[in-house]
């Protein structure tokens, strides 16, 4: 017997939990599946167990705020299945998932994707060396296992997350060897047009300034205008080489290098479903088209949270609630009138929560070199292909990403192009002198998560002996 549910939510982060609570209140049956062992998503990873500890304290108030939502979610009556991966969604909404090696199909009237964001892949020479990881991955280690690197870490990149992580690391007793700031010069000048927004939301700005002050007090060395850098080492990271715009090249010893160039929506599910997407110039990524309720171009498939465009955790909660209202409306649990009334205060709240985003996007554009890596830089990690390999393949006809995949195997590995998709698109756009939006993106094939043959075979009920 196939299990059925009114609404299946993928992801138990801010958006997924908020939506579940509101959907339950509207009287719908809800199943939330999530890859992590506990609710919270990336921002509030392990919040239930960590918030009350000293680590919770040093992670800060924004982190600890998540425990209240997690508690409300636990009490909401939504079914919740952690450590579960969704690997395929088929029309009629059949959601295929696996937990502990056991696969199952669930039928759902409506599906809400609350799968959040991923860190923007930022290739540079040496980024595959052991010792190089992302700031996000390091922060997860801090949240889930209270891991502080024993050696001083180098941090490269821009945006609010490196600032927050460095502040948290310093509070936890870690050391920052240096911060290579890759954001192009003139950030505040780029932010000027948004002065009104800054004043309006000064509380949030003050947080960022607070992190900067903490770093200054801790003596963290900030090196600005970093134009390019390389990780060097034989089998593992030994040396970091960087070039400052107009300031020469230096080599420094390094054991841990953390990189970050912002986050982009996780679009693998919406791409696999063939939902309509558009290119966001501000965030240099694809964003699914959604209506005022977060419904995609497919009826009954919704997105809430950063997966529908990067806007942060608080906005994700609000968007989760709005999606829940839209879903309840479509399920006939709310009149159109009631839905509009309930949504009104949420929409005002959301406008405020999203107000600083254009300023942040303008201040912290990703460094240009991640889209134009040098020929020797590996771009497809799974198949170990360099930017040079892709440029050579780009000379045959006017290939798009899917042809490049067939020519070179780029994007055919287990990561399904999550690491190389945007880089390949930008390289092709540059070689062919056309806009990246026109070049397009890989077609995404199931399974969305690696699945064993045995797991898949277990779904063949007719073949059961």
């Amino acid at each position: 017997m196939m299990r059925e549910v009114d609404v299946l939510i993928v992801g138990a982060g801010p958006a997924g939990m908020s939506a579940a609570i509101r959907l339950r209140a509207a009287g719908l049956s809800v199943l939330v599946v999530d890859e992590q062992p506990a609710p919270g998503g990336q921002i509030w990873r392990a919040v239930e167990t960590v918030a009350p500890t000293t680590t919770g304290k040093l992670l800060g108030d924004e982190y600890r705020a998540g425990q209240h939502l997690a508690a409300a979610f636990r009490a909401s009556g939504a079914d919740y299945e952690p450590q579960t991966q969704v690997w395929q969604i088929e029309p009629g909404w059949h959601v295929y998932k696996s937990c502990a090696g056991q696969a199952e199909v669930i039928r759902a009237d409506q599906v809400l994707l609350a799968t959040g964001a991923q860190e923007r892949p930022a290739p540079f020479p040496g980024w595959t060396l052991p010792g190089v990881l992302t700031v996000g991955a390091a922060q997860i280690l801090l949240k889930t296992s209270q891991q502080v690197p024993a050696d001083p870490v180098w941090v490269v990149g821009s945006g609010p997350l490196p600032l927050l992580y460095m502040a948290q690391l310093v509070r936890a007793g870690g050391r920052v060897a240096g911060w290579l700031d890759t954001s192009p010069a003139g950030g505040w000048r780029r932010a000027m047009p948004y002065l009104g927004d800054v004043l309006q939301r000064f509380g949030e700005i003050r947080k960022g300034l607070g992190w900067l002050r903490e770093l200054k007090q801790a003596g963290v060395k900030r090196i600005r205008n970093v134009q390019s850098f390389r990780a060097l080492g034989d089998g593992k990271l030994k040396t970091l080489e960087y070039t400052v715009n107009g300031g020469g090249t230096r080599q420094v010893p390094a054991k841990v290098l953390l990189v970050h160039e912002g986050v982009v929506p996780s679009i693998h599910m919406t791409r696999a479903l063939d939902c309509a997407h558009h290119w966001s110039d501000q965030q240099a990524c694809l964003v699914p088209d959604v209506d005022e309720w977060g419904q995609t171009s497919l009826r009954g498939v919704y997105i809430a949270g950063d997966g529908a465009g990067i806007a942060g955790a608080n906005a994700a909660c609000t968007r989760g609630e709005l999606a829940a209202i839209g879903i309840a409306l479509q399920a006939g649990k709310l009149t159109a009138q009631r839905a509009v009334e309930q949504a009104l205060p949420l929409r005002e709240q959301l406008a405020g929560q999203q107000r600083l985003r254009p300023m942040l996007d303008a201040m912290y554009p990703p460094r240009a070199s991640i889209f134009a890596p040098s020929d020797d830089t590996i771009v497809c990690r799974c198949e170990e292909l360099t930017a040079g390999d892709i440029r050579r393949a780009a000379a045959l006809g006017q290939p798009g990403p899917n042809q490049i995949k067939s020519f070179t195997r780029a994007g055919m590995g287990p990561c399904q192009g999550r690491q190389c998709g945007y880089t390949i698109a930008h390289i092709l756009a540059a070689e062919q002198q056309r806009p990246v939006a026109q070049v397009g993106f890989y077609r995404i094939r199931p399974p969305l998560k690696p699945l064993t043959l045995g797991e898949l075979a277990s779904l063949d009920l007719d073949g059961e002996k």
Partner: protein
Amino acid sequence: MTQAYDVVVIGGGLHGLSAALHLARRSARVLVVEKHWVGRHASGATAAGVRTLNRDRGELDLSLEALDMWHALASLVGDDCGFHPNGQICVAENAGALSKLEARVNGLRADGYTHEEMIGPAELRRLLPELSHHCLGASYTRRDGAADPHRALRAFRSSAVDAGVTLVEHCGVNALKKTGQGWLVSADGGREWSAGAIVNAAGAWSGRVAAMVGDDIPLATKSSMMMVSERLRPFIKPVVAIMGRSLSFKQSDQGTLVIGGGLQGIPDLDRETSTARMQVLAKGARSATDLFPSVRDIRIVRVWAGLEAKTDDMLPVVGPSPNAPGVFHAFGFSGHGFELVPVVGATLADLILTGKTSRPIQALDARRLMPAFAKEKSS
């Protein structure tokens, strides 16, 4: 000004490229027009089996000639296209299946065909050491094997271009009009070419092209799904099928397992895509793990489906249009066209340049499928 070609080939899949290559090598001026890009659909999605095993008699002789061509493919396209003649095996899991295979092989022998042979459990185990012990025997074609579809596309494409073929990608054909000397081809963006002859190698959309010249050839659409695994150590060389179940199982040069065998997704010709059905693929996974229990924990990395045309009798249409002089069809390969690529292109070149061919294509005539001619035949 409208450019003139001897032949315009509609469809830049492997069959279109092969026809263009053979024609150009014999001095014809050829243009290939492709709606998307070379190998976009079936040719890029194929399992690339080079198989004479279990071929229908209607295309067997053609298929055997094609196999010889595969064994010398580098002389045609400068690359062996990753073809490894490690054999194809059709396994019997029970006595009923075994006797069906034996009956087939005996029937072939009676007519003088020796390419298929029966092998017993000992030989089967030698060829496939990790095969489950419940398998009783198999039919086997030693000279068959599999190739690399992407290498084949590259090789046929570059050989065709080197032979002087003009390739136009991202351009769909909208109309074919009879002129005094031949045909006028109208395509996207107002592009036009005149041609003495037309090759319809438009794959899943060939029925629509045929209709442009008045041929009503009923076709269905196949959307055969494939899955590929992570890389693993080399452990199997031949391609393996099972009598009575949908499975084709092999290991690629990259070490990945490639599993298919005609499991069908949901095709959508208008949107030019198909939807995978994991519930159906689960049967393929079940067959694979029943045969090779050691692959249970191997991870599937990707699943896809290719679109192609299927005829009522599962044989392709190869030959002149019944209604439109100068138009030649090559489509409807129904899931087993890859092996025929080198020979069908050569056959079309015969037909177009000399008006006849000595190759055995009698069973592939379009008229057998067309209601108008079927009526004539019965009356």
